[in-house]
Structures are given as structure tokens and as C-alpha cells.
């Protein structure tokens, strides 16, 4: 008989295991927190994705949607789609709505009588409707408020007058419409033309949706459509990808939060390691006895691995249950922002992934103490009661290595951006390593520090480096969470300050679309009349798709590309195009030459150097674009570097005027008001003089961006909060593990005449010192990383809000201190005589 069988080992393990996992509760709490956070993140992501998939038809408003700029579908294209089912036509554009006394930018949505093909529109008051009747509009509450109108009132869009038919409460296809630059107004399909908004060159988008008859494969229909009309410049979406932007955001956010949760679980791992070491330390007598009775080291490893495995399973299971239970609350918080399945959602893959992460982290951190415990000869265990368990890392290298590899594989497999995930994991590992080194350094420094004269401070300092002290583990565990808090606060406040302060300095106050090209002078005069000294920059604006590119004799056809080259996003769908006599502001040539003034030779184009690099384009190559159904080819005359931070109009393709100026088009303009001036009646005056133009206000967009930033920061902060909670669990575990030594010290000091107040001061001094060290480490590390993110990664200004950072750090540090003192208070109540008898 060599080793104990697993069933026999389990019988012994179960007997030795306390029914309520006494001694292993730190492990339980740490796994509960880590697995719970991961389960909640996974379940919530899946609940949103599930709803995006389930409601694909309603979100898209059809089984398939075809978008094209500046034209409706032609007869052949419409007939092709009608073969598959019922179609609904629509138009989308930026426009202005106004009354005699107010004006506001709106997102105009013109729909035909078949709209919505799926889902229902709900108006304020609960009535469900389809398209508005002729002459009426459904308007968003925000637009009604800004115009000061309500149901039954008249207002103007362009040159047409419409009546408010109702206030929109729920718009079924809102999510697929994407980022809105104004409040929605839904009108009948014929209104834009009546209002003069669809004149040739006007910027609008036509959307044609299909509700399939029968059950054809949407992807099959999509590829048939592309094959039939390869150069039509369609942007096609199917019900499976109803809102790719939202899906991409949810996917990436979910992945990022999972990684933050995993980092929190790593902190919990420190608690797991500490908890298991303390547990085995307390079991030293039992391990020795089992060895005396004939248990081999393998038997010991089996028995205690089974016990710890059982506790890990229980903790993980509790975490999974909590993660699932908390998801409906998180879903409620997200209501209105994203579609999310309500009620309890159980997503087995997410739960299995969370549980696997938890168990693997438990394996990595619990293996070393188990391996060390099994190596000790029975008599050494008996003899070294006072010294902590320690052993060679080599013995635990195999299980730890396997666990780490599996954790990395689990995190990277299925990740949408494995390199980014790998980078994050490497960064988190480096941060943990750095903190561990700092912890050691602080311990060593405390040992070498000159002994303070005050006995309380002296004892407190000694506690930081005494044998068995947890200073190293605590600096790692708590430092990570607090540094993450500082990092987030630094990044968020800097981004916020950049958006609030720096961006408005550089960005214009208004973007104006569809300024008639022959009325530019009138437009400039109108602006100057309302805001003297305003800076106006107007450029021609057209839309077209790149159809082919490359050498003249061997061009690459874009529709034949299986996959777009990395970074060549401009090849996807239609893009803004312009032409210019001179090199645009903020651009610089990196290759070739700009065309001379009044150039009239071969059509030329200047290409963004980044796109040229991604697509392999060089000066002298040719590029063909599809513009309103007509192909136009130009030779690449130069490559430009674009300063995207200039916040003005930036075009990837700028043509020589003779290449595009004959195409019908309008102008787009930016207006930058002199600092300190207000818009006054500019908006109303522009609407009156240029009813077909639309204005986008930058201020509300920045507010919207700041709101989104705030929500994202909250989500990351919540995930990082788990790291702080796990750190506090590690702290409580460390205090509990050192309880006997601390009780001994306390009792001896009481015997020597120390008062309870002095003992309390001792605890305060010790944990105050630790908290101060932690705060300093978190501040330096967190703000250093935040600086890297802001200045090096985002290339923004470093504008942290220090009072807010200190407030966040202070709150975290006080929390740590409060828990530490709270956990130490029972020691102060120890009665010397009673304690001495039991020590």
C-alpha cells in the first residue's frame, strides 16, 4: 500500500474539516469576493449581449438594413430588396427645429408608413404609434423643452411647418441609430424634401430596412446584395449585428472589467495564501500526528488539498450565487442606457469561467503552503512550533506554474483583444511584483530605522518587521487597491479637466452642416453680425467610398478584400471627402507636393499618411472613389500628417478642386466665438436665414462625453473596489493570524503596567504607520501610472484634480485604518491573568 486513496483521504479530510470552515474563512471570503465580482461582470455582459441578440430585429428595426449617403436606393436596388420581404424607407440627417423664439439642433428621422417594421413606438401617455401622420411630428422631450412647445403646437423644420403630434417616450430602434448629435424628431418621409433638406449635395443618410418573408439567412442576403451592387457604397447591417457599436463597447468593457476583476482576484489570492498558511500552521499538530500514524507527505498533501479545495469550492459557489443575485440590481442601474435582460440571468459559460479563475488562483496561492507542510518530518513539525512554515519555492513551482499558465490562457482565449489583455495582465503582474518588492523594502527599512525613544512608537515600528509580520503582504494587497483608486481618480479627473478646459479652448463652438456653397459670403456676414470677430472656417463637404487604390495598372479593389488592412478603417463604407486649394490648417506634408493654385491638370488627391501606411499607398498611386454613383479617379500627389487634436475639419482624402468641385455639394463650417462672447441670437438667426442648414453645438456634446466618461469610471471603480475589499480581507486575516503573538504582547504590556489607552495608541501608531506608508506608495505608484496613461497614451495634458485624488486616497486609507483598529480592539479587552493561563 503506497498512497492513501482519494476516497480514504477525503474521509480523513472531511473529519478534520470544521463544519463551518473555521480557520479557512479568509480563503472563503477572498474567493467569494473575487469570484462574485467576476461572475457579476460576466453575467451582466452576457445579459446585455443576450438582449442585444434577442432584440436584434427590434433594435435594428428590420432583419436587414441598407444605409447609403446622399441618395435613396434606386429602383433596381429597391426591387432587389423587395424580393426578400416588406421594406421600410427612411432618411436621417442633422437639422434645426425652431419656433419664433427658440431654435435647437435635432436629429431628424423621416420614416414611411411601414415604420417600425418591428417593435413599437410609445408616446408620452402610453399610446403606441407607427409613423406620424402627414404634417405631424413625434418629438423627443428634450427638443420640446428647448423649443418650449407641446402636443398640438406648430414649429418649423427647414422651410416646412409641422405640428407636434406627441412626445416620444420609447423609440424602438434608438440604439441602432448610434451616437446622436441632437434630440430626435420623427417626421413623415416626405418632409425633408418639402423642407428643402435633400437638395443635391445635402448631407443625409437613407436607411432602407427589410422585414423578411420566410426565413432567409440575413448574411446570405447581405452577400447577394454586395455581389449584385459592388460599387453602391452600402453600409449593411443585419439583425445579428444590429448595433455593432454597442456590442463592441459592451464586449470590450466586459473584457476590461474582467481583467480588473482578475487583478482583484490576484489580491484575494494573497489572502488565500495567507489564510492557507495560517490554517496549516494551526494544523501543525494534526499534521505531525497523522505523520506519526503513518501518513506520507503525499497523503498529507491530498488530505489538506481536499480540505482547501472543498473550502475553495464553497467560497466560489457562494461567489457565483452572489454574482448572479447582484446582476438584476446592476441591470436596473443600466436601464435606459443599454438593453439588458431583467430578472435573474444564469449564463453557464460566464459562471464556469469565473469559478475556474477562482479555483486556479486558489491553486496558485494555496499550493506553496501545502507543499511546504508536506515536506516537514513529523518531529520537525513538533519541534518548530514557534517558527512559521517556510520552504523552498522549487517544490511548489509545478502547481504554481501550471495554475499561472492556465489563468493566462483562460484570460486570453476568447479575448477580443488578446494582446491588450496580455499587456494588462503583464502590467498588473509587474505592479504586484513592484509592490511585493516595496513591501520587503519597507520591512527592511523598519528594521534598520533608529529605535524611537517613545516605547509605543518603538513597539509599533517593531511590529512592522518582527518575525512573521505581514507587512509585505499587506503593502502588496492594500497598496494595489489604493493605487488603483489613485490611478482611476488621476485619469478621470485629468480627462475630465481636458474635456472641460483644454478641449473647448481648441474646439470650435459650432459645427454647421449644409451651408449652400453659393451663399458663403452671406453666411459669414450673418455670423459676424451676431458675433463680431468670430473665426469661421468653411470647407466643401461630400461623401464617397474608396472603391480601389494602388498602382494604375494593378489596383486593389476594396470590395474584393477579405479583411481590411490593420488601421485602414477609412476603406470601410462611405467617408467625408473634400477639396482644397491650399494645404488645410493643422496638416503638414510628409511626402510629395501640394498642387499649385488654380491647378487644372490630372485630378490629384492628398492622402492621410497613416492610411497610406496601412494600405501600402505611395505618391504616384491612384485612388478611385464612388461619389453619388459616379466613379472618380485621382493620382496621389502627396501624403499628409493630420493633427487630429486641432478639433476642426479633418479629412483623410483632400482632392484638388478640379477633381470634385463639379459634383453637387454644400459646405460645412466651424464657428469659433471670440473668448468671453456668448452665442446670443446666432442660432435663431442662422435657422431663419439658412433653414436647410443644421448646427451642432459642441458644449452639449462635451457634456455627453463627460457623462459617458463618468459612467465608465464608476464601473471601473466598482471593479477596483473589489480589490480594496479583498485587501481589507487580507488585512483582517493577517491580524487574525498574528492574534496569538499580539495577545501575548498585549498581555505582557498590561502586566508591565500599560493602560488600555496606551495599548490603543500602540495599535493606532502601528496601523497609522502602515496606512501612511500605504498611502504614500499608492500616491506615488497610482499617480505615476495615471500620468503615463494621460500624457504618454492619450497625449493629453496632465491636469489631475489633487483635492479629489487626496479625498479618494484619504477615504481608502481611513477605511483600512478603521478595519485594522476594529479588528484589534478585542485584544485590548483581554484579561492578563486569564490570557496568561491559556498562552
Amino acid at each position, binding site marked *: 500500500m503506497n498512497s492513501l486513496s482519494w476516497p480514504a483521504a477525503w*474521509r*480523513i479530510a472531511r*473529519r*478534520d474539516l470544521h463544519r463551518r470552515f473555521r480557520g479557512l474563512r479568509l480563503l472563503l471570503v477572498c474567493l467569494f469576493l473575487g469570484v462574485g465580482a467576476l461572475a457579476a461582470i460576466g453575467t451582466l455582459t452576457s445579459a446585455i449581449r443576450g438582449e442585444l441578440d434577442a432584440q436584434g430585429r427590434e433594435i435594428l428595426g428590420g432583419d436587414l438594413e441598407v444605409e447609403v449617403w446622399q441618395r435613396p436606393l434606386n429602383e433596381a436596388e429597391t426591387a432587389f430588396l423587395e424580393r426578400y420581404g416588406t421594406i421600410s424607407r427612411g432618411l436621417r440627417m442633422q437639422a434645426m427645429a425652431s419656433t419664433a423664439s427658440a431654435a435647437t439642433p435635432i436629429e431628424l428621422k423621416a420614416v414611411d408608413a411601414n415604420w417600425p417594421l418591428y417593435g413599437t413606438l410609445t408616446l408620452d401617455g402610453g399610446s403606441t404609434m407607427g409613423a406620424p401622420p402627414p404634417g405631424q411630428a413625434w418629438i423627443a422631450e428634450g427638443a420640446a423643452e428647448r423649443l418650449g412647445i407641446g402636443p398640438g403646437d406648430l414649429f418649423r423644420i427647414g422651410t416646412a411647418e409641422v405640428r407636434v403630434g406627441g412626445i416620444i417616450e420609447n423609440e424602438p430602434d434608438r440604439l441602432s441609430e448610434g451616437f446622436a448629435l441632437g434630440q430626435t424628431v420623427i417626421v413623415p418621409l416626405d418632409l425633408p424634401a418639402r423642407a428643402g433638406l435633400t437638395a443635391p449635395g445635402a448631407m443625409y443618410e437613407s436607411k432602407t430596412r427589410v422585414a423578411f418573408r420566410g426565413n432567409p439567412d440575413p448574411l446570405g442576403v447581405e452577400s447577394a446584395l454586395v455581389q449584385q451592387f459592388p460599387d453602391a457604397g452600402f453600409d449593411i447591417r443585419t439583425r445579428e449585428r444590429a448595433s455593432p457599436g454597442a456590442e463592441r463597447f459592451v464586449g470590450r468593457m466586459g473584457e476590461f472589467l474582467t481583467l480588473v476583476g482578475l487583478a482583484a482576484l490576484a489580491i484575494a489570492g494573497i489572502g488565500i495564501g495567507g489564510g492557507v498558511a495560517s490554517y496549516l500552521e494551526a494544523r501543525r499538530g494534526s499534521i505531525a500526528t497523522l505523520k506519526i*500514524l*503513518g501518513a506520507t507527505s503525499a497523503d498529507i498533501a491530498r488530505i489538506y488539498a481536499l480540505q482547501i479545495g472543498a473550502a475553495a469550492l464553497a467560497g466560489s459557489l457562494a461567489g457565483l450565487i452572489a454574482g448572479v443575485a447582484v446582476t438584476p440590481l446592476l441591470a436596473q442601474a443600466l436601464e435606459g442606457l443599454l438593453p439588458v435582460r431583467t430578472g435573474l440571468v444564469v449564463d453557464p459559460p460566464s459562471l464556469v469561467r469565473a469559478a475556474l479563475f477562482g479555483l486556479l488562483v486558489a491553486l496558485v496561492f494555496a499550493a506553496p503552503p501545502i507543499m511546504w507542510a508536506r515536506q516537514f*518530518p*513529523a518531529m520537525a513539525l513538533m519541534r518548530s512550533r514557534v517558527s512559521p512554515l517556510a520552504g523552498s519555492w522549487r517544490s511548489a513551482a509545478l502547481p504554481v506554474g501550471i495554475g499561472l499558465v492556465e489563468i493566462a490562457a483562460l484570460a486570453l482565449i476568447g479575448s477580443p483583444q488578446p494582446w491588450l489583455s496580455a499587456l494588462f495582465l503583464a502590467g498588473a503582474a509587474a505592479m504586484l511584483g513592484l509592490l511585493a518588492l516595496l513591501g520587503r523594502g519597507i520591512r527592511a527599512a523598519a528594521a534598520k530605522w533608529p529605535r524611537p525613544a517613545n516605547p509605543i512608537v518603538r513597539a509599533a515600528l517593531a511590529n512592522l518587521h518582527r518575525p512573521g509580520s505581514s507587512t509585505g503582504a499587506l503593502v502588496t494587497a492594500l497598496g494595489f487597491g489604493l493605487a488603483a483608486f489613485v490611478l482611476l481618480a488621476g485619469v478621470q479627473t485629468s480627462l475630465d479637466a481636458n474635456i472641460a478646459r483644454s478641449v473647448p479652448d481648441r474646439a470650435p463652438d459650432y459645427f454647421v452642416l449644409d451651408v449652400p456653397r453659393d451663399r458663403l459670403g452671406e453666411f459669414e456676414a450673418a455670423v459676424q453680425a451676431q458675433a463680431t470677430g468670430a473665426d469661421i472656417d468653411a470647407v466643401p463637404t461630400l461623401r464617397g467610398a474608396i472603391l480601389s487604390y494602388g498602382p494604375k495598372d494593378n489596383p486593389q479593389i476594396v470590395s474584393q478584400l477579405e479583411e481590411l488592412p490593420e488601421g485602414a478603417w477609412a476603406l470601410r463604407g462611405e467617408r467625408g471627402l473634400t477639396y482644397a486649394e491650399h494645404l488645410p490648417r493643422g496638416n503638414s506634408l510628409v511626402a510629395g507636393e501640394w498642387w499649385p493654385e488654380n491647378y487644372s491638370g490630372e485630378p490629384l488627391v492628398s492622402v492621410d499618411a497613416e492610411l497610406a501606411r496601412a494600405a501600402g499607398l505611395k505618391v504616384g498611386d491612384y485612388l478611385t472613389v464612388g461619389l453619388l454613383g459616379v466613379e472618380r479617379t485621382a493620382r496621389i500627389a502627396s501624403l499628409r500628417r493630420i493633427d487630429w487634436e486641432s478639433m476642426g475639419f479633418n479629412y483623410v482624402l483632400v482632392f484638388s478642386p478640379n477633381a470634385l468641385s463639379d459634383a453637387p455639394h454644400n459646405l460645412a463650417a466651424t464657428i469659433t466665438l471670440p473668448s468671453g462672447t456668448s452665442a446670443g441670437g446666432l442660432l435663431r438667426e442662422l435657422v431663419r436665414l439658412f433653414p436647410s442648414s443644421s448646427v451642432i453645438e459642441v458644449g452639449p456634446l462635451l457634456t455627453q462625453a463627460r457623462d459617458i466618461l463618468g459612467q465608465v469610471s464608476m464601473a471601473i471603480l466598482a471593479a477596483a473596489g473589489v480589490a480594496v475589499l479583498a485587501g481589507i480581507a487580507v488585512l483582517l486575516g493577517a491580524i487574525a493570524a498574528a492574534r496569538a503573538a499580539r495577545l501575548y504582547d498585549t498581555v505582557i504590556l498590561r502586566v508591565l503596567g500599560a493602560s488600555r489607552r496606551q495599548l490603543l495608541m500602540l495599535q493606532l501608531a502601528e496601523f497609522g504607520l502602515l496606512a501612511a506608508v500605504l498611502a504614500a506608495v499608492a500616491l506615488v505608484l497610482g499617480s505615476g501610472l495615471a500620468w503615463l496613461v494621460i500624457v504618454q497614451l492619450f497625449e493629453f495634458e496632465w491636469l489631475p484634480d489633487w483635492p479629489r485624488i487626496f479625498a479618494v486616497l484619504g477615504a481608502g486609507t481611513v477605511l483600512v485604518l478603521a478595519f485594522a483598529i476594529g479588528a484589534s480592539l478585542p485584544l485590548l479587552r483581554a484579561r492578563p491573568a486569564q490570557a496568561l493561563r491559556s498562552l
Partner: protein
Amino acid sequence: MVTRPPAIEARDLRLTLGEGEAAVEVLRGIDLSVNTGETLALLGPSGSGKSSLMSVLSGLERASSGSLTVAGADFERLDEDALARARRGRIGIVLQAFHLLPTMTAQENVATPLELAGQPDAWARAAVELDAVGLGHRLTHYPSQLSGGEQQRVAIARAIAPRPPLVFADEPTGNLDASTGAGIVELLFDRRAETGATLVIITHDEELAARCDRVVTLKDGRIASDVTP
């Protein structure tokens, strides 16, 4: 007549604990042969090396040098795990501080070595053994719910249960009052008589030593005397 091999055969056993300047030579060349079925008392003052000798003889500790054969097994060639396997079912140990598993009941404590030795009826046999030491009514009690004498009786039942040919008892009455201790000694000798095991008792109680077939006295890590009372 068939000559049975000695239960223990030790030659020039040495044990040094600690390293460098802190090294202490605890056993300094022990030669000892214990016959099968013999009862032997190891006497000596505190620090003479009695417990260390028992640790080495029972395979809890490896000697620094010398040769040792226990129940036919060459102990100096065995590693830690092989020594543990060698103990299973062959060596029973009773310790002064009982060393019961605090999280297990009396019956579970006694069943554990049987299970480690792979015996299928461990549970029932544990009950029988406890009944034999007068604790049939205490099967489900935890060590903390038993008196010192009862705990030592559980420890004896646990040591004897696998029917080992060799039993070591290290100061089995050291933590007990005189009358309880006397009862435990009776029980230990009775159980040994029933099983016919070789018994090695470490004690500094000369009366107890006198009940053994042979008394070996240790002093400063060496055998000072080896007598048959």
C-alpha cells in the same frame, strides 16, 4: 527451536540536532538490540536523550549516522515517506501529550491509522478497540470533551488498533495524576499482553520500569546501563 529476529537492532546510532556552532550531539553511539515480544524501559534524567532515541527507533527522526533495523526494515536507507509507510500497521506510538486529532471524535481518531494502512473495517474495529479500553460509551466525543486519562486511553487504543508488532510509549503517564496513571499502565500492559507486541516505554518512573523485562538507562546520549530486573 526457531530463533526470531530482534525487533530492533541499532548499531552506533548518533543524532546531532542543529548546525554549525549551534549543533548539539543528542545521541552519541547507541548500540541496542530489542528482542521480539520483549518489554523494555528506557530510563534516564531529562535531557539524557530518551525521547530522541525513541524518535529515531520509531522512524520519526532519521539518525545522523549508525545502522538501524526495525522489524526487519533497514531504517537508515529509508526516506521520510518510506519511514511513514514502514510505521503503518507495524509501529504504534503513545505520546505523553496524547496528540489526538482535536477535530476528530474518539472513534475517528482510532480509525485513522487503520484507514491509512488501508484496512477496510476500520470504523468497526475502532469501536471494538475503544470498547476494549473502556470507552465504548465515548465513541462520538471529541478530545476536548474527554478527561486526560480518557484521552490517553484513546491514544493507546489508536496505537494498538492496527495490531503493530512494536509499540512505543513516551512517558505515557507524564501528564496524568498518580491513580489515573496507574490505570493507564495496567491497560497498556494488558493490551500488550493480548497482542504480544514488543513494548518500549520511555519513563523516569523506576517502579514502572521495574515491570519491564529489561531496563536500559541513558545518560548524556549514551547507554549507562542495561539490566534485567
